[in-house]
């Protein structure tokens, strides 16, 4: 099922040196149950694309539609809280919180109605964190574990769309594969739309479809 559409979106950064055209009329659509990989050189505009898809910013031209509705006319904070889960290269766990609290945080923000603690623990278990580690501060985990906690946080509020910006960039091969496996499973088993930005070939290989960013242009492979 189609969930996200990019309709000719363009985006510019204004710098001292002049305008940087980071995105040039990108058009694509994404479906549930599919893992997408967006590849491209550094500086080609991948992260920019992702922030537009997450509604962190709005395009200069064109629009991003979630289930047919333009993000421009939506409460984008709420859109992120309820429909998007984000994963970053550098995990972004809050150091002052425990593993389980980090996951609970997104539930609290999404105004999750069920038992937040139980849901958070369920998610951590799902990504392979052991129960006795739930109450450890996030900084005490290894990089792979931290990224798994970040994944648990991203999927806790049960969003349809999961955006991961170089989720394996800081991880060794084994941990990378582990994360990709989890993400793939989310798409194939739980029917999420997973979009992974990466420049690791082995990650792209595992995706169902690959798109390439090249100097602001988006093309399907």
């Amino acid at each position, binding site marked *: 099922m189609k969930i996200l559409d990019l309709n000719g979106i363009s985006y510019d950064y204004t710098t001292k040196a002049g305008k940087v055209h980071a995105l040039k009329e990108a058009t694509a659509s994404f479906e549930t149950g599919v893992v997408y990989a967006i590849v491209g050189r550094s500086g080609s505009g991948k992260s920019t694309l992702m922030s537009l898809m997450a509604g962190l910013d709005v395009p200069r031209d064109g629009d991003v539609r979630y289930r047919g509705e333009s993000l421009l006319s939506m409460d984008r*904070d709420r859109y992120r809280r309820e429909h998007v889960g984000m994963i970053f290269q550098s995990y972004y766990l809050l150091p*002052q*919180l425990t593993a389980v609290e980090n996951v609970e*945080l997104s539930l609290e*923000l999404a105004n999750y109605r069920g038992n937040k603690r139980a849901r958070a623990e369920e998610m951590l278990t799902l990504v392979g964190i052991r129960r006795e580690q739930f109450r450890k501060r996030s900084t005490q985990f290894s990089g792979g574990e931290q990224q798994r906690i970040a994944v648990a946080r991203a999927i806790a509020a049960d969003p349809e769309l999961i955006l991961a910006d170089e989720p394996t960039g800081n991880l060794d091969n084994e941990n990378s594969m582990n994360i990709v496996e989890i993400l793939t499973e989310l798409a194939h088993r739980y029917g999420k739309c997973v979009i992974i930005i990466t420049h690791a070939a082995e990650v792209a290989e595992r995706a169902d479809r690959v798109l390439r960013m090249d100097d602001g242009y988006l093309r399907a492979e």
Partner: protein
Amino acid sequence: MLIKFAFRNLRRLPWRTVLYSSAVFLVILAMTASLLVLCACENARTTLEEEYMFVASLVHRPNTNVYMSDVGLCTQGNEILGINLAMAEGQAVIPGGVHMTEYPDEDNMPSEPSALYMEPFGCNLFAVENLSMVYPFFTGEYTIREGTGLTAEGYTGERAELVIPWWLADQYGIGVGDTVMRRYNHYGHNNNGHYSYRECTVVGIYEAKNKSASPDSYPAYMTVGRAERDYDNFFIPRTVTPIVLDRVDFVLRGRDSFGTFVKTAEANGLALDRVDLVFNNATYDTLLAELDSIRTVALFVFLTVLTVGLGVLIFFTVLLCHTRERERRLLVSLGMTRGGVCRMLAWELAVMLLVAVTLGLGVGYLAAEGVCSYVNGSVLARASASQRVRNLSSDEAFDETMPLEKRIELSVSVFDTTVSASALYFNSMCLPDENELGISRLTLPFIETGENGYPREGIENGVWHPTTIVAVTDPDAVGVSVSTEALRARADYNPYSIYMYVSESSPFAPKDGDDGLLRLYFGKDMQGCVSVVDDFAIRLGGEPLVRYGRENVAGIVAAYVIGTYRDNALCSGEDVLICMEDYHDMFEALSVDFGGFRFERIGHIINKEELQ
């Protein structure tokens, strides 16, 4: 939720919370403490200025004297708040022998002044305004004998009371409460002198530490107010008799008054080659200098903390927000609004600031009090009664040691700065200007007699009525039927008589066709009094006649009704209006010494326009 997150962050990031709060706390503490100390110093300066008794002293130069007339030359200006003088009364003594406790027998009254000098000598008399400011008492050389119920400080303003030396008490067996006579020699009354005797109650006996000198050098003390009256109204500016004074202390309005004070005195003809005016309020200067240096330090600390501290705080705050940038970005990506993130950070800051500022203010206050008490205990304690003055021997450095200097102590506190000057009573000098009116009031009982002073029938059993006597420096300003000028012009005017005005509605108001003046008697209390008029004594009410002599002897004084006043804000109804000089005469004659009542030359001053 935001508040919960904020508190959780504060708890989970203890080092950050503690460090930031401490920084704020220290800055606020230093600022509060220095600011409070600064204010305390400011406040102390004002208090010191207000409470300090700036005293200028009139002292003699080597081998010369200070005379009563010199005082008159100094009291003309507007700079004086109070005056204290010690008066060596060469002409007033307590006679020895039988005349010490009894009036001279009328039959044996020595007719020649020289014969009176042959009476056994009792004791010299000194008149003082305030006993505690007389040097030997001040320095502790003389002390009031234990158990006599009087302190040197307590001996102020009362009238017709005597403090006698131990030797006189022991020699004649006099105790506190006994009555003795004072003998006066009035020069100028006639060429041979004229003697009068006045009763006086002993209220204290003093001892001297060093009893080596001859008894003559230890005088009895009485108040100047009394002595002045007894000397036929030698009100200070009019004094011509060369009465030798020990020393005169003038309490001035402020530090700056001294210059004007000296100029005025010099312009009035004070002989500065014979006497000297000294102003040695060293303690004030020292205290002020100390306060100023503390203030400078406090100001420096305050300004330093204000600039550096605030800079540090701003830096810390920016740093604090900056370190949360990742967190901010994450929270936004998790769907928290940007405003929400700011509010959460603001809550954290607010809580830390609230705690730190509250603590800082509280501890800063305590610190300021601590600084103040340290300052009190060290710097100011040293400066109070500056060491130099304290070490001076009053006997030797007479001119340099102000009587009050040794007792001044300044105690600085954040909210309650005090200057403990000696609680001395000064007979304040109120000198009304041309357009001002000086007023004093006193309630006395009176009884009516017939014209020309001869008693009306039945007056012996008459009833006394309390009435208020209102004395003014200028009766004409109140609107009286007979002006002062007209009164003085009368053929029967007698400067030694007391004249008064009653209300137009009073039954005592003079009526057309009266050929004499109605006379009212005033007593000092409601008990029986005795009047002796032209050698024949009458008993007025109450007690039986016990004793009589040639003068009004038993607390009664007569006053003539000379005219009327229109009722006004000052006096109306049964009030009696008299001029200030007559008031003083009346006071003198009655030796009024009610408990708590202090003799005031002029009680207060109002503007004449207020009467209109």
